[in-house]
């Protein structure tokens, strides 16, 4: 993975000192609260319901065991012994104090981490496919480009006071596991049809929140080495023309929607044509320097099949299930990437205790070359595990409650913090996730239902990506009561789609029953081997809506 050189090191240290100075100026009154707010947000510090919240960047989801141990230390020393992994490859601490923040940033800098631009109206932490570098369906590892963007966007003199936040995601694979179409800019690595040169399909104007949009392509092919200059052109058009009169209409998706993707493209291309691109883009040696850090490790030459693994799977069905559900095909023979679920039944999705972190860091060293990944599904990944090591790994994970076999299944729920932590929330999301997971806990049943993405947000801001969940749940407030709206048919893959609302809102305790009904329709209608979302697309919303309506009426009769 990337390692800081002397310049990166100095930059994050200077950033810590800058923030220390800003905090001091806030405390002595020379900065007003209004002036301080964007500065603290750009260092990941939110003011929440009960306390400050600190959001730490895990750039493109790659983390080392050493960094995870440091997060455990911060959780113990400055928080209540746990952290929360988010859908944007960040980790959040819910209980730090403002005066401790500079010291925490210092501890992060010690392990080449930071909170830079994890919030605020600037270019945010850049996200990527969590299987980057190991996926078999990959054109190339997207992380060198992500690192280039991370550096380029850090403390950008021109783009640090944008109309609104700006999120960039990159994938190098055929299958989109980074939800690039739901980002302000999505970059999909492609090869030029004729020259087979590497480049990007550039997608803009995706986003969720209160007005969800699937992003639109503005460039079919952008040569790889032109990326930064092209990004500069997009950002300048947005900075100058994005709406600033209404915070809810300030994202680039609204600009693209209002003027049309053609007009937006013309503006970007006109600005791009004017630029002296050679003065902006990095020289090839710099690109190579960064790429070298992501060179594949020296994998052992292993047989594609492991007899030890096959034997252990035969003897232990629970283990076999875990391998089948949580394993992911690796490009190197004899290796596998393993998703470690942070969605134990009844647990808080994405939460991890400091003990689990330390234990996991040790396992990362022992089984996966010291590197792990954080996924936008709020799970962790060990990218480089030898097949023959899977059994001992599974046994070790089990000791700390980390061996849940549910990746991609109905209990692998994405949920935002909701009303339990978040000041913007209109409803709780964690207890709903827990109730649904408990309802569907039976492993046989879960497996029978198969792949199903269930996403929960505690308000219209959609931090839990409910719009793109196959089933989405949005917590609202109606006359002082929590009310949950259910959507169906969302999709976060390369076939991105926004789900449709299927009926009236429900109270929290009625939600698991409603999910049951939807699942029942699927089980009844599905064809051999057809996953949930495919059935929804094939038969349409109507049968689901009817069952839902029936359920709602039943509730009413029951109440009457």
């Amino acid at each position: 993975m990337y390692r800081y050189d002397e310049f990166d090191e100095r930059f994050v240290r200077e950033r810590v000192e800058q923030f220390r100075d800003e905090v001091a100026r806030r405390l002595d009154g020379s900065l007003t609260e209004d002036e301080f707010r964007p500065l603290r947000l750009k260092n990941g510090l939110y003011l929440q319901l009960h306390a400050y919240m600190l959001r730490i960047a895990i750039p493109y989801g790659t983390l080392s065991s050493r960094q995870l141990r440091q997060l455990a230390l911060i959780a113990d020393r400055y928080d209540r012994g746990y952290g929360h992994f988010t859908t944007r490859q960040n980790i959040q601490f819910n209980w730090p104090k403002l005066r401790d923040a500079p010291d925490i940033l210092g501890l992060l800098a010690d392990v080449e981490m930071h909170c830079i631009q994890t919030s605020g109206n600037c270019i945010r932490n850049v996200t990527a496919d969590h299987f980057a570098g190991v996926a078999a369906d990959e054109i190339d590892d997207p992380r060198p480009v992500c690192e280039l963007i991370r550096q380029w966007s850090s403390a950008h003199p021109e783009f640090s006071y944008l109309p609104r936040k700006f999120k960039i995601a990159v994938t190098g694979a055929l299958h989109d596991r980074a939800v690039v179409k739901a980002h302000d800019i999505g970059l999909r690595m492609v090869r030029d049809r004729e020259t087979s040169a590497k480049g990007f399909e550039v997608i803009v104007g995706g986003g969720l929140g209160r007005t969800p949009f699937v992003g639109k392509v503005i460039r079919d092919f952008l040569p790889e080495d032109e990326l930064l200059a092209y990004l500069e052109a997009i950002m300048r058009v947005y900075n100058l023309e994005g709406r600033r009169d209404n915070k809810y209409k300030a994202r680039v998706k609204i600009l693209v929607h209002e003027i049309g993707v053609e007009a937006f493209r013309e503006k970007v291309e006109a600005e791009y044509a004017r630029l002296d691109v050679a003065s902006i883009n990095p020289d090839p040696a710099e690109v190579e320097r960064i790429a070298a850090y992501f060179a594949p490790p020296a994998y052992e030459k292993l047989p594609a099949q492991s007899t030890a693994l096959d034997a252990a799977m035969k003897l232990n069905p629970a283990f076999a299930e875990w391998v089948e559900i949580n394993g992911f095909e690796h490009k190197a023979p004899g290796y596998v990437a393993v998703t470690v679920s942070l969605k134990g039944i009844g647990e808080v999705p994405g939460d991890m205790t400091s003990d689990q972190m330390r234990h996991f860091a040790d396992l990362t060293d022992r089984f996966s070359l010291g590197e792990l990944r954080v996924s936008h599904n709020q799970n962790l990944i060990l990218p480089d595990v030898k097949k023959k090591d899977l059994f001992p790994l599974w046994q070790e994970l089990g000791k700390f409650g980390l061996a849940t076999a549910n990746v991609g299944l109905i209990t692998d729920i994405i949920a935002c913090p909701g009303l339990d932590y978040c000041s913007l929330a209109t409803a709780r999301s964690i207890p709903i996730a827990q109730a649904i997971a408990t309802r569907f806990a039976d492993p046989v049943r879960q497996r029978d239902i198969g792949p199903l993405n269930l996403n929960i947000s505690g308000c219209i801001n959609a931090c839990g990506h409910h719009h793109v969940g196959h089933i989405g749940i949005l917590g609202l407030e109606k006359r002082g009561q929590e009310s949950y709206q259910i959507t169906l048919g969302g999709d976060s893959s390369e076939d991105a789609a926004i789900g449709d609302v299927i009926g009236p809102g429900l109270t929290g305790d009625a939600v698991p029953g409603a999910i049951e009904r939807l699942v029942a329709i699927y089980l009844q209608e599905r064809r051999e081997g057809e996953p949930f979302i495919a059935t929804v697309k094939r038969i349409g919303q109507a049968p689901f809506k009817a069952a839902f309506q029936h359920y709602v009426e039943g509730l009413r009769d029951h109440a009457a």
Partner: protein
Amino acid sequence: MLLDARGAKDDVWIKPDQVPQVQASHRLVLWEDWAGDSEVQARGVEIPNTLKIGDLLPILGQVELIAIRFGAFTDGRGFSLARLIRAQGYKGTLRATGPLIPDQFAYALRCGFDEVEVPDANANRQPPDVWLRAARSFSANYQRGYATGVNILDQRRLARAGR
């Protein structure tokens, strides 16, 4: 308070809201008034941050001072507008006028501004030494192609060449 990279300085420009003086060459005229004044002799213009660069092109050669108004410090349009003005080859003075904060000083300079003019109330809370300290927060930056300051990518290139 007016200040540039060296610190506070006197303002030689006469503001639109001050009594018009006989000596017109250092008058700073609002963009809204500029167009209506056929005999304009002023060499300074204060423009809104929403002005299109195309509208400004005809007068770029006539003026010695362009002041871009920042309505709020959170409104970053002025940074991009400054870049566009410099990209057109404008060599005169570029001023950021409005309630900017010291933590933006380095950004303003790097986007092509020469000086910043902030309301006195802000300057009282944030005297020049705070601005100068804030401007020195980073000894180098990641972006190539911006006006001032040392660039990390170029530093790396030099380090490679020296090896």
